[in-house]
Protein backbone atom coordinates (compact mmCIF):
# COMPACT_ATOMS: atom_id res chain seq x y z
CA UNK A 1 0.00 0.00 0.00
CA UNK A 2 1.07 3.52 -0.80
CA UNK A 3 0.48 6.01 1.96
CA UNK A 4 1.17 9.66 2.60
CA UNK A 5 1.27 10.77 6.21
CA UNK A 6 0.89 14.44 6.94
CA UNK A 7 3.13 15.44 4.05
CA UNK A 8 4.23 19.03 3.80
CA UNK A 9 5.92 20.29 0.64
CA UNK A 10 7.80 23.54 0.30
CA UNK A 11 9.08 24.93 -3.00
CA UNK A 12 12.19 27.10 -3.15
CA UNK A 13 12.48 27.03 0.63
CA UNK A 14 9.56 29.42 1.15
CA UNK A 15 6.44 28.50 -0.82
CA UNK A 16 4.24 26.13 1.15
CA UNK A 17 2.27 24.04 -1.32
CA UNK A 18 1.12 20.96 0.56
CA UNK A 19 -0.02 21.65 4.11
CA UNK A 20 -0.14 18.23 5.69
CA UNK A 21 -1.63 15.80 3.19
CA UNK A 22 -2.53 12.28 4.26
CA UNK A 23 -3.97 9.73 1.95
CA UNK A 24 -3.87 6.01 1.28
CA UNK A 25 -3.91 4.23 -2.03
CA UNK A 26 -5.25 0.71 -1.66
CA UNK A 27 -3.40 -2.04 -3.48
CA UNK A 28 -5.14 -3.15 -6.64
CA UNK A 29 -7.66 -0.33 -6.52
CA UNK A 30 -8.24 2.95 -8.32
CA UNK A 31 -8.09 5.94 -6.03
CA UNK A 32 -8.83 9.40 -7.34
CA UNK A 33 -7.63 12.77 -6.20
CA UNK A 34 -9.93 15.61 -7.19
CA UNK A 35 -9.53 19.32 -6.92
CA UNK A 36 -9.35 22.60 -8.77
CA UNK A 37 -6.29 24.04 -10.48
CA UNK A 38 -3.51 24.82 -8.07
CA UNK A 39 -4.92 22.68 -5.28
CA UNK A 40 -1.68 20.69 -5.08
CA UNK A 41 -2.70 17.48 -6.83
CA UNK A 42 0.27 17.32 -9.18
CA UNK A 43 2.62 18.31 -6.37
CA UNK A 44 1.29 15.37 -4.38
CA UNK A 45 2.13 13.01 -7.24
CA UNK A 46 5.60 14.52 -7.64
CA UNK A 47 6.23 14.15 -3.94
CA UNK A 48 5.59 10.43 -4.34
CA UNK A 49 7.64 9.97 -7.50
CA UNK A 50 10.59 11.93 -6.15
CA UNK A 51 10.49 14.49 -8.93
CA UNK A 52 9.97 17.46 -6.63
CA UNK A 53 13.67 17.98 -6.19
CA UNK A 54 14.18 18.62 -9.89
CA UNK A 55 11.82 21.58 -9.39
CA UNK A 56 13.46 22.81 -6.21
CA UNK A 57 10.68 21.43 -4.06
CA UNK A 58 11.09 19.32 -0.95
CA UNK A 59 9.08 17.15 1.41
CA UNK A 60 9.78 19.00 4.65
CA UNK A 61 7.44 17.16 7.02
CA UNK A 62 5.63 13.89 7.16
CA UNK A 63 6.49 10.70 5.33
CA UNK A 64 5.60 8.73 2.24
CA UNK A 65 5.60 4.97 2.57
CA UNK A 66 5.25 2.20 0.04
CA UNK A 67 4.98 -1.43 1.15
CA UNK A 68 6.32 -0.50 4.54
CA UNK A 69 9.36 1.39 3.24
CA UNK A 70 9.89 5.14 3.36
CA UNK A 71 10.33 6.47 -0.14
CA UNK A 72 10.24 10.25 0.30
CA UNK A 73 14.02 10.55 0.34
CA UNK A 74 14.65 8.42 -2.74
CA UNK A 75 15.72 9.79 -6.15
CA UNK A 76 13.16 9.33 -8.94
CA UNK A 77 14.87 6.35 -10.58
CA UNK A 78 14.90 4.48 -7.27
CA UNK A 79 11.15 5.10 -6.88
CA UNK A 80 10.53 3.72 -10.38
CA UNK A 81 12.55 0.63 -9.48
CA UNK A 82 10.26 0.07 -6.50
CA UNK A 83 7.31 -0.04 -8.88
CA UNK A 84 5.80 3.44 -8.82
CA UNK A 85 5.68 5.35 -12.07
CA UNK A 86 4.22 8.76 -12.79
CA UNK A 87 2.41 9.72 -15.99
CA UNK A 88 2.55 13.47 -16.43
CA UNK A 89 -0.33 15.62 -17.48
CA UNK A 90 -0.15 17.22 -20.89
CA UNK A 91 1.00 14.10 -22.80
CA UNK A 92 4.69 14.58 -22.39
CA UNK A 93 6.03 12.15 -24.99
CA UNK A 94 9.68 12.23 -26.05
CA UNK A 95 8.78 14.23 -29.14
CA UNK A 96 11.83 13.45 -31.22
CA UNK A 97 11.71 9.72 -30.59
CA UNK A 98 9.43 7.36 -32.47
CA UNK A 99 6.53 5.62 -30.76
CA UNK A 100 8.53 2.44 -30.30
CA UNK A 101 11.63 4.29 -29.08
CA UNK A 102 9.44 5.98 -26.48
CA UNK A 103 8.40 2.56 -25.25
CA UNK A 104 11.99 1.33 -25.19
CA UNK A 105 13.00 4.38 -23.17
CA UNK A 106 10.14 3.60 -20.79
CA UNK A 107 11.62 0.15 -20.18
CA UNK A 108 14.91 1.61 -19.06
CA UNK A 109 14.96 -0.17 -15.70
CA UNK A 110 14.28 -3.53 -17.38
CA UNK A 111 17.61 -5.23 -18.10
CA UNK A 112 16.30 -8.27 -19.95
CA UNK A 113 15.85 -7.61 -23.71
CA UNK A 114 13.32 -10.40 -24.11
CA UNK A 115 11.07 -8.86 -21.50
CA UNK A 116 11.35 -5.45 -23.15
CA UNK A 117 10.11 -6.97 -26.39
CA UNK A 118 7.32 -8.72 -24.48
CA UNK A 119 6.41 -5.46 -22.78
CA UNK A 120 6.13 -3.70 -26.12
CA UNK A 121 3.78 -6.42 -27.38
CA UNK A 122 1.64 -6.07 -24.25
CA UNK A 123 1.34 -2.31 -24.79
CA UNK A 124 0.35 -2.90 -28.42
CA UNK A 125 -2.35 -5.29 -27.26
CA UNK A 126 -3.90 -2.66 -25.04
CA UNK A 127 -3.35 0.13 -27.57
CA UNK A 128 -3.53 -1.39 -31.08
CA UNK A 129 -3.41 2.10 -32.56
CA UNK A 130 0.14 2.55 -31.27
CA UNK A 131 1.25 -0.50 -33.23
CA UNK A 132 0.11 1.09 -36.47
CA UNK A 133 2.05 4.20 -35.57
CA UNK A 134 5.12 2.46 -34.17
CA UNK A 135 7.73 4.15 -36.36
CA UNK A 136 6.17 7.63 -36.43
CA UNK A 137 7.99 10.39 -34.59
CA UNK A 138 5.82 10.76 -31.51
CA UNK A 139 5.67 14.54 -31.69
CA UNK A 140 3.46 14.09 -34.73
CA UNK A 141 0.97 11.69 -33.14
CA UNK A 142 -2.53 12.92 -32.39
CA UNK A 143 -3.40 13.98 -28.86
CA UNK A 144 -5.23 10.76 -28.10
CA UNK A 145 -2.40 8.63 -29.43
CA UNK A 146 0.08 10.59 -27.36
CA UNK A 147 -1.96 10.00 -24.22
CA UNK A 148 -2.05 6.29 -25.02
CA UNK A 149 1.68 6.36 -25.61
CA UNK A 150 2.53 7.95 -22.26
CA UNK A 151 0.36 5.40 -20.45
CA UNK A 152 1.90 2.58 -22.49
CA UNK A 153 5.39 3.93 -21.85
CA UNK A 154 4.73 3.94 -18.11
CA UNK A 155 3.52 0.32 -18.35
CA UNK A 156 6.91 -0.62 -19.79
CA UNK A 157 8.43 -0.13 -16.35
CA UNK A 158 6.15 -2.92 -15.08
CA UNK A 159 4.76 -0.79 -12.26
CA UNK A 160 2.67 -1.81 -9.27
CA UNK A 161 1.33 1.70 -8.93
CA UNK A 162 0.63 4.21 -11.69
CA UNK A 163 0.28 7.87 -10.78
CA UNK A 164 -1.92 9.15 -13.56
CA UNK A 165 -2.14 12.91 -13.92
CA UNK A 166 -5.18 14.27 -15.81
CA UNK A 167 -5.34 11.83 -18.70
CA UNK A 168 -8.51 13.56 -19.94
CA UNK A 169 -6.90 16.97 -20.42
CA UNK A 170 -7.70 18.43 -23.81
CA UNK A 171 -9.09 15.25 -25.38
CA UNK A 172 -12.41 14.60 -27.08
CA UNK A 173 -14.98 12.96 -24.78
CA UNK A 174 -15.03 9.75 -26.80
CA UNK A 175 -11.27 9.36 -26.55
CA UNK A 176 -11.40 10.11 -22.85
CA UNK A 177 -13.88 7.30 -22.33
CA UNK A 178 -11.73 4.92 -24.38
CA UNK A 179 -8.67 5.76 -22.31
CA UNK A 180 -10.51 5.47 -19.01
CA UNK A 181 -11.84 2.11 -20.19
CA UNK A 182 -8.29 0.92 -20.80
CA UNK A 183 -7.15 2.19 -17.40
CA UNK A 184 -9.96 0.20 -15.82
CA UNK A 185 -8.95 -2.85 -17.85
CA UNK A 186 -5.33 -2.49 -16.73
CA UNK A 187 -6.50 -2.24 -13.16
CA UNK A 188 -8.51 -5.44 -13.42
CA UNK A 189 -6.28 -7.58 -15.63
CA UNK A 190 -2.82 -6.50 -14.56
CA UNK A 191 -3.73 -5.75 -10.92
CA UNK A 192 -2.38 -2.26 -11.50
CA UNK A 193 -2.96 0.14 -8.64
CA UNK A 194 -3.90 3.59 -9.89
CA UNK A 195 -3.80 6.99 -8.24
CA UNK A 196 -5.77 9.13 -10.65
CA UNK A 197 -5.66 12.91 -10.54
CA UNK A 198 -8.57 14.43 -12.42
CA UNK A 199 -10.56 17.56 -13.01
CA UNK A 200 -13.26 15.53 -14.70
CA UNK A 201 -14.74 14.39 -11.40
CA UNK A 202 -17.80 12.73 -12.90
CA UNK A 203 -15.71 10.34 -14.95
CA UNK A 204 -13.09 9.79 -12.28
CA UNK A 205 -15.72 8.81 -9.72
CA UNK A 206 -17.22 6.23 -12.06
CA UNK A 207 -14.01 4.18 -12.28
CA UNK A 208 -12.52 4.91 -8.86
CA UNK A 209 -13.54 3.15 -5.68
CA UNK A 210 -12.29 5.82 -3.32
CA UNK A 211 -11.73 9.54 -3.71
CA UNK A 212 -10.04 12.45 -2.01
CA UNK A 213 -10.82 16.12 -2.58
CA UNK A 214 -8.03 18.65 -2.31
CA UNK A 215 -8.16 22.38 -1.89
CA UNK A 216 -5.35 24.79 -1.19
CA UNK A 217 -2.86 22.07 -0.36
CA UNK A 218 -5.13 20.19 2.04
CA UNK A 219 -7.35 17.15 1.80
CA UNK A 220 -10.78 18.55 2.61
CA UNK A 221 -12.96 15.54 1.99
CA UNK A 222 -12.62 11.85 1.38
CA UNK A 223 -14.85 8.86 1.02
CA UNK A 224 -15.94 6.04 -1.21
CA UNK A 225 -16.71 7.05 -4.77
CA UNK A 226 -20.41 6.40 -4.23
CA UNK A 227 -20.53 8.57 -1.14
CA UNK A 228 -18.67 11.36 -2.91
CA UNK A 229 -21.01 11.22 -5.89
CA UNK A 230 -23.94 11.74 -3.54
CA UNK A 231 -22.29 14.54 -1.56
CA UNK A 232 -24.19 17.79 -2.29
CA UNK A 233 -21.04 19.90 -2.37
CA UNK A 234 -19.29 17.57 -4.79
CA UNK A 235 -22.40 17.53 -6.90
CA UNK A 236 -22.46 21.26 -7.13
CA UNK A 237 -18.80 22.18 -7.38
CA UNK A 238 -17.35 19.23 -9.27
CA UNK A 239 -20.17 17.50 -11.06
CA UNK A 240 -21.97 20.69 -12.07
CA UNK A 241 -25.34 19.40 -10.89
CA UNK A 242 -27.82 21.54 -9.02
CA UNK A 243 -31.15 20.87 -7.38
CA UNK A 244 -33.08 19.33 -10.22
CA UNK A 245 -34.90 21.84 -12.38
CA UNK A 246 -34.47 24.73 -9.99
CA UNK A 247 -33.63 28.03 -11.57
CA UNK A 248 -30.73 29.73 -9.87
CA UNK A 249 -30.19 33.41 -9.60
CA UNK A 250 -26.83 35.01 -10.18
CA UNK A 251 -26.73 35.93 -6.50
CA UNK A 252 -26.55 32.28 -5.50
CA UNK A 253 -23.75 31.64 -7.92
CA UNK A 254 -21.89 34.69 -6.76
CA UNK A 255 -21.99 33.48 -3.19
CA UNK A 256 -20.99 29.97 -3.91
CA UNK A 257 -17.94 30.24 -1.68
CA UNK A 258 -20.11 30.48 1.40
CA UNK A 259 -21.62 27.15 0.62
CA UNK A 260 -18.38 25.18 0.73
CA UNK A 261 -19.22 23.90 4.14
CA UNK A 262 -16.00 21.98 4.64
CA UNK A 263 -14.06 25.21 4.74
CA UNK A 264 -16.07 26.71 7.61
Amino acid at each position, binding site marked *: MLGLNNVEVIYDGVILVLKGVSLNVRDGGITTLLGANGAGKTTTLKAV*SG*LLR*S*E*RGDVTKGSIEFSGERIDRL*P*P*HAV*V*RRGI*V*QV*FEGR*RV*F*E*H*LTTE*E*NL*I*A*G*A*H*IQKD*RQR*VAGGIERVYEYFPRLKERRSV*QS*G*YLSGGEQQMLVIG*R*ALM*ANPHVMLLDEPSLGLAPMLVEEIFGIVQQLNRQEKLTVLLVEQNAALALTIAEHGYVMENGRIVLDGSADALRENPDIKEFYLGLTEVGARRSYRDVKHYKRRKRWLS
Partner: protein
Amino acid sequence: MSDDLSFFFLLMSNGLLIGLMYSLIALGFVLVYKATDAINFAQGEFVMIAGFVTAGALMVWGAPLWVAVALALVSLVAFGFVLERVMLRRLIGRPVIAVVMATIGLAAILRGVGPFVIFSGTKPLPLPIRDEPFMLGPIFIPPIQLLGAGVSLAFLAGFGWFFLKSRKGIAMRAVADNQQVAMAMGIDVERYFGVAWAMTGVVSALGGILWGNLLGVDVNLALVGFKVFPVVILGGLDSIPGAIIGGLIVGVVENIAAGYVDPYVGGGTKDFAPYVLMILALMIRPYGIFGKRIIERV
Protein backbone atom coordinates in the same frame (compact mmCIF):
# COMPACT_ATOMS: atom_id res chain seq x y z
CA MET B 1 43.96 17.11 -67.33
CA SER B 2 44.38 20.85 -67.24
CA ASP B 3 46.22 22.44 -64.37
CA ASP B 4 43.12 24.37 -63.31
CA LEU B 5 41.06 21.25 -62.97
CA SER B 6 43.71 19.30 -61.09
CA PHE B 7 44.17 22.27 -58.73
CA PHE B 8 40.44 22.19 -58.08
CA PHE B 9 40.50 18.47 -57.35
CA LEU B 10 43.44 18.94 -55.03
CA LEU B 11 41.58 21.60 -53.08
CA MET B 12 38.48 19.44 -52.92
CA SER B 13 40.20 16.28 -51.73
CA ASN B 14 42.19 18.15 -49.15
CA GLY B 15 39.05 19.97 -48.03
CA LEU B 16 37.02 16.79 -47.66
CA LEU B 17 39.70 15.00 -45.64
CA ILE B 18 40.36 17.96 -43.37
CA GLY B 19 36.61 18.43 -43.14
CA LEU B 20 36.17 14.94 -41.69
CA MET B 21 38.76 15.79 -39.06
CA TYR B 22 36.68 18.84 -38.16
CA SER B 23 33.68 16.53 -37.95
CA LEU B 24 35.46 14.47 -35.31
CA ILE B 25 35.92 17.47 -33.06
CA ALA B 26 32.42 18.71 -33.80
CA LEU B 27 31.17 15.28 -32.74
CA GLY B 28 32.49 16.00 -29.25
CA PHE B 29 30.44 19.17 -29.16
CA VAL B 30 27.35 17.47 -30.56
CA LEU B 31 27.47 14.59 -28.06
CA VAL B 32 27.35 16.95 -25.12
CA TYR B 33 24.71 19.19 -26.64
CA LYS B 34 22.56 16.23 -27.64
CA ALA B 35 22.52 14.66 -24.23
CA THR B 36 22.78 17.59 -21.83
CA ASP B 37 21.76 20.70 -23.78
CA ALA B 38 25.02 22.29 -22.68
CA ILE B 39 27.00 24.36 -25.16
CA ASN B 40 30.66 23.56 -24.68
CA PHE B 41 32.83 26.49 -25.59
CA ALA B 42 35.89 24.61 -24.36
CA GLN B 43 35.79 21.93 -27.06
CA GLY B 44 38.97 23.25 -28.69
CA GLU B 45 40.70 23.27 -25.33
CA PHE B 46 39.68 19.64 -24.71
CA VAL B 47 41.46 18.79 -27.95
CA MET B 48 44.45 20.91 -26.97
CA ILE B 49 44.80 19.24 -23.57
CA ALA B 50 44.66 15.82 -25.24
CA GLY B 51 47.47 16.96 -27.53
CA PHE B 52 49.47 18.18 -24.54
CA VAL B 53 49.02 14.91 -22.66
CA THR B 54 50.03 12.79 -25.65
CA ALA B 55 52.96 14.95 -26.73
CA GLY B 56 54.05 15.31 -23.12
CA ALA B 57 54.03 11.55 -22.59
CA LEU B 58 55.91 10.95 -25.85
CA MET B 59 58.45 13.77 -25.86
CA VAL B 60 58.93 14.74 -22.22
CA TRP B 61 58.50 11.46 -20.35
CA GLY B 62 59.60 9.26 -23.26
CA ALA B 63 56.68 6.85 -23.07
CA PRO B 64 55.91 4.53 -25.98
CA LEU B 65 53.15 5.60 -28.34
CA TRP B 66 50.48 3.19 -27.12
CA VAL B 67 51.01 4.33 -23.53
CA ALA B 68 50.73 7.96 -24.61
CA VAL B 69 47.51 7.32 -26.55
CA ALA B 70 46.02 5.28 -23.70
CA LEU B 71 46.99 7.98 -21.24
CA ALA B 72 45.30 10.64 -23.37
CA LEU B 73 42.11 8.58 -23.63
CA VAL B 74 41.95 7.71 -19.95
CA SER B 75 42.74 11.18 -18.72
CA LEU B 76 40.24 12.88 -21.03
CA VAL B 77 37.47 10.42 -20.09
CA ALA B 78 38.23 10.93 -16.42
CA PHE B 79 38.33 14.67 -16.99
CA GLY B 80 34.89 14.56 -18.65
CA PHE B 81 33.40 12.60 -15.74
CA VAL B 82 34.93 14.81 -13.07
CA LEU B 83 33.97 18.00 -14.87
CA GLU B 84 30.36 16.92 -15.08
CA ARG B 85 30.33 15.89 -11.44
CA VAL B 86 32.05 18.90 -9.99
CA MET B 87 31.01 21.77 -12.20
CA LEU B 88 28.18 21.05 -14.61
CA ARG B 89 25.89 19.08 -12.34
CA ARG B 90 25.45 22.16 -10.20
CA LEU B 91 24.40 24.11 -13.26
CA ILE B 92 21.54 21.79 -14.21
CA GLY B 93 18.34 23.76 -14.36
CA ARG B 94 20.19 27.09 -14.41
CA PRO B 95 19.98 29.44 -17.39
CA VAL B 96 21.92 28.34 -20.49
CA ILE B 97 24.19 31.34 -20.16
CA ALA B 98 25.56 29.94 -16.88
CA VAL B 99 26.89 26.85 -18.64
CA VAL B 100 28.22 28.93 -21.53
CA MET B 101 30.14 31.23 -19.21
CA ALA B 102 31.39 28.31 -17.13
CA THR B 103 32.82 26.56 -20.21
CA ILE B 104 34.40 29.79 -21.45
CA GLY B 105 36.07 30.11 -18.06
CA LEU B 106 37.12 26.49 -18.25
CA ALA B 107 38.64 27.11 -21.68
CA ALA B 108 40.81 29.89 -20.28
CA ILE B 109 41.91 27.73 -17.36
CA LEU B 110 42.86 24.84 -19.65
CA ARG B 111 44.87 27.13 -21.93
CA GLY B 112 46.78 28.18 -18.84
CA VAL B 113 47.13 24.78 -17.20
CA GLY B 114 48.35 22.85 -20.28
CA PRO B 115 51.59 24.73 -20.80
CA PHE B 116 52.06 25.32 -17.08
CA VAL B 117 51.78 21.74 -15.92
CA ILE B 118 52.90 19.68 -18.91
CA PHE B 119 55.35 21.67 -21.03
CA SER B 120 55.73 25.08 -22.59
CA GLY B 121 56.59 25.94 -26.15
CA THR B 122 55.71 23.85 -29.18
CA LYS B 123 56.36 20.13 -29.38
CA PRO B 124 55.75 17.80 -32.29
CA LEU B 125 53.52 14.78 -31.87
CA PRO B 126 55.04 12.18 -34.14
CA LEU B 127 52.98 9.20 -35.21
CA PRO B 128 54.53 6.15 -36.89
CA ILE B 129 53.04 6.81 -40.31
CA ARG B 130 54.89 7.87 -43.40
CA ASP B 131 55.26 11.51 -44.37
CA GLU B 132 55.31 11.25 -48.15
CA PRO B 133 51.84 11.75 -49.55
CA PHE B 134 50.07 9.16 -51.64
CA MET B 135 49.90 10.29 -55.26
CA LEU B 136 46.65 9.73 -57.08
CA GLY B 137 47.04 11.32 -60.47
CA PRO B 138 47.15 15.05 -59.83
CA ILE B 139 45.95 14.66 -56.26
CA PHE B 140 48.27 14.00 -53.38
CA ILE B 141 46.99 12.86 -50.02
CA PRO B 142 49.04 13.08 -46.82
CA PRO B 143 48.69 9.79 -44.89
CA ILE B 144 47.83 11.58 -41.65
CA GLN B 145 44.78 13.10 -43.29
CA LEU B 146 43.72 9.71 -44.50
CA LEU B 147 44.14 8.28 -41.02
CA GLY B 148 42.26 11.23 -39.53
CA ALA B 149 39.39 10.85 -41.97
CA GLY B 150 39.23 7.11 -41.29
CA VAL B 151 39.16 7.51 -37.51
CA SER B 152 36.53 10.25 -37.83
CA LEU B 153 34.27 8.17 -40.01
CA ALA B 154 34.60 5.16 -37.74
CA PHE B 155 33.63 7.13 -34.66
CA LEU B 156 30.87 9.05 -36.36
CA ALA B 157 29.37 5.80 -37.60
CA GLY B 158 29.85 4.16 -34.18
CA PHE B 159 28.14 6.93 -32.24
CA GLY B 160 25.47 7.24 -34.92
CA TRP B 161 24.61 3.58 -34.43
CA PHE B 162 24.74 3.93 -30.66
CA PHE B 163 22.16 6.72 -30.58
CA LEU B 164 19.86 5.20 -33.15
CA LYS B 165 19.80 1.56 -32.16
CA SER B 166 21.13 0.81 -28.69
CA ARG B 167 18.91 1.07 -25.64
CA LYS B 168 21.39 3.28 -23.83
CA GLY B 169 21.52 5.56 -26.84
CA ILE B 170 17.74 5.79 -26.94
CA ALA B 171 17.77 6.59 -23.22
CA MET B 172 20.27 9.37 -23.87
CA ARG B 173 18.07 10.83 -26.56
CA ALA B 174 15.14 10.63 -24.16
CA VAL B 175 17.19 12.56 -21.61
CA ALA B 176 17.96 15.18 -24.23
CA ASP B 177 14.31 15.40 -25.21
CA ASN B 178 12.87 15.93 -21.75
CA GLN B 179 14.94 15.54 -18.62
CA GLN B 180 12.08 15.45 -16.16
CA VAL B 181 10.08 12.86 -18.03
CA ALA B 182 13.25 10.81 -18.48
CA MET B 183 13.72 10.87 -14.70
CA ALA B 184 10.13 9.71 -14.27
CA MET B 185 10.89 6.72 -16.50
CA GLY B 186 13.62 5.63 -14.12
CA ILE B 187 16.50 6.97 -16.18
CA ASP B 188 19.34 8.20 -14.02
CA VAL B 189 19.76 11.49 -15.87
CA GLU B 190 22.89 12.60 -14.06
CA ARG B 191 24.71 9.39 -14.87
CA TYR B 192 24.00 9.85 -18.55
CA PHE B 193 25.28 13.40 -18.38
CA GLY B 194 28.54 11.98 -17.07
CA VAL B 195 28.59 9.38 -19.86
CA ALA B 196 28.07 12.08 -22.48
CA TRP B 197 30.99 14.13 -21.17
CA ALA B 198 33.15 11.01 -21.04
CA MET B 199 32.28 10.23 -24.67
CA THR B 200 33.27 13.75 -25.58
CA GLY B 201 36.53 13.02 -23.77
CA VAL B 202 37.19 10.01 -26.05
CA VAL B 203 36.50 11.98 -29.20
CA SER B 204 38.56 14.94 -28.01
CA ALA B 205 41.49 12.69 -27.15
CA LEU B 206 41.58 11.25 -30.67
CA GLY B 207 41.08 14.70 -32.16
CA GLY B 208 43.96 16.00 -30.08
CA ILE B 209 46.31 13.25 -31.25
CA LEU B 210 45.43 13.67 -34.94
CA TRP B 211 45.41 17.45 -34.98
CA GLY B 212 48.47 17.55 -32.74
CA ASN B 213 50.35 15.51 -35.33
CA LEU B 214 49.18 17.81 -38.11
CA LEU B 215 49.77 21.17 -36.43
CA GLY B 216 52.21 20.50 -33.60
CA VAL B 217 51.21 20.88 -29.96
CA ASP B 218 51.05 24.24 -28.27
CA VAL B 219 48.33 26.56 -27.02
CA ASN B 220 47.30 27.39 -30.57
CA LEU B 221 46.04 23.84 -31.04
CA ALA B 222 42.91 25.03 -29.23
CA LEU B 223 42.12 27.21 -32.22
CA VAL B 224 40.78 24.23 -34.19
CA GLY B 225 37.92 24.45 -31.72
CA PHE B 226 36.77 27.62 -33.42
CA LYS B 227 35.98 25.63 -36.53
CA VAL B 228 33.47 23.63 -34.53
CA PHE B 229 30.90 26.42 -34.51
CA PRO B 230 30.38 26.76 -38.27
CA VAL B 231 30.38 22.96 -38.53
CA VAL B 232 27.63 22.45 -35.94
CA ILE B 233 25.58 25.44 -37.03
CA LEU B 234 25.61 24.21 -40.62
CA GLY B 235 24.87 20.62 -39.72
CA GLY B 236 22.60 21.11 -36.72
CA LEU B 237 23.74 21.31 -33.10
CA ASP B 238 22.45 17.89 -32.15
CA SER B 239 22.92 15.86 -35.30
CA ILE B 240 25.69 13.35 -35.96
CA PRO B 241 25.12 13.16 -39.75
CA GLY B 242 25.00 16.95 -39.53
CA ALA B 243 28.46 16.98 -37.99
CA ILE B 244 29.77 14.99 -40.95
CA ILE B 245 28.11 17.14 -43.59
CA GLY B 246 28.95 20.35 -41.77
CA GLY B 247 32.58 19.29 -41.43
CA LEU B 248 32.83 18.44 -45.11
CA ILE B 249 31.28 21.77 -46.10
CA VAL B 250 33.58 23.76 -43.84
CA GLY B 251 36.64 21.84 -45.01
CA VAL B 252 35.81 22.36 -48.68
CA VAL B 253 34.79 25.99 -48.29
CA GLU B 254 37.94 27.00 -46.51
CA ASN B 255 40.14 25.23 -49.04
CA ILE B 256 38.30 26.72 -51.99
CA ALA B 257 38.55 30.14 -50.38
CA ALA B 258 42.25 29.65 -49.69
CA GLY B 259 42.88 28.43 -53.24
CA TYR B 260 40.89 30.94 -55.27
CA VAL B 261 40.37 34.03 -53.13
CA ASP B 262 43.64 34.26 -51.19
CA PRO B 263 45.81 35.09 -54.25
CA TYR B 264 43.77 38.28 -54.78
CA VAL B 265 43.52 39.49 -51.18
CA GLY B 266 46.81 38.26 -49.80
CA GLY B 267 45.64 35.39 -47.63
CA GLY B 268 43.59 34.79 -44.52
CA THR B 269 40.20 34.06 -46.10
CA LYS B 270 40.49 30.46 -44.93
CA ASP B 271 39.83 31.51 -41.37
CA PHE B 272 36.69 33.52 -41.87
CA ALA B 273 35.04 31.99 -44.96
CA PRO B 274 33.31 29.27 -42.89
CA TYR B 275 31.91 31.95 -40.61
CA VAL B 276 30.39 33.86 -43.54
CA LEU B 277 28.71 30.62 -44.47
CA MET B 278 27.62 30.08 -40.87
CA ILE B 279 25.91 33.46 -40.70
CA LEU B 280 24.15 32.82 -43.99
CA ALA B 281 23.05 29.43 -42.70
CA LEU B 282 21.67 30.97 -39.52
CA MET B 283 19.60 33.37 -41.59
CA ILE B 284 18.11 30.61 -43.74
CA ARG B 285 17.96 27.49 -41.56
CA PRO B 286 18.67 28.31 -37.92
CA TYR B 287 18.39 24.68 -36.79
CA GLY B 288 20.98 23.47 -39.32
CA ILE B 289 20.66 20.99 -42.14
CA PHE B 290 19.86 18.04 -39.88
CA GLY B 291 19.09 19.76 -36.58
CA LYS B 292 15.92 18.88 -34.76
CA ARG B 293 13.08 21.25 -35.28
CA ILE B 294 10.83 22.19 -32.43
CA ILE B 295 7.62 20.39 -33.29
CA GLU B 296 4.64 22.65 -33.16
CA ARG B 297 1.27 21.08 -33.56
CA VAL B 298 -1.71 23.15 -34.43
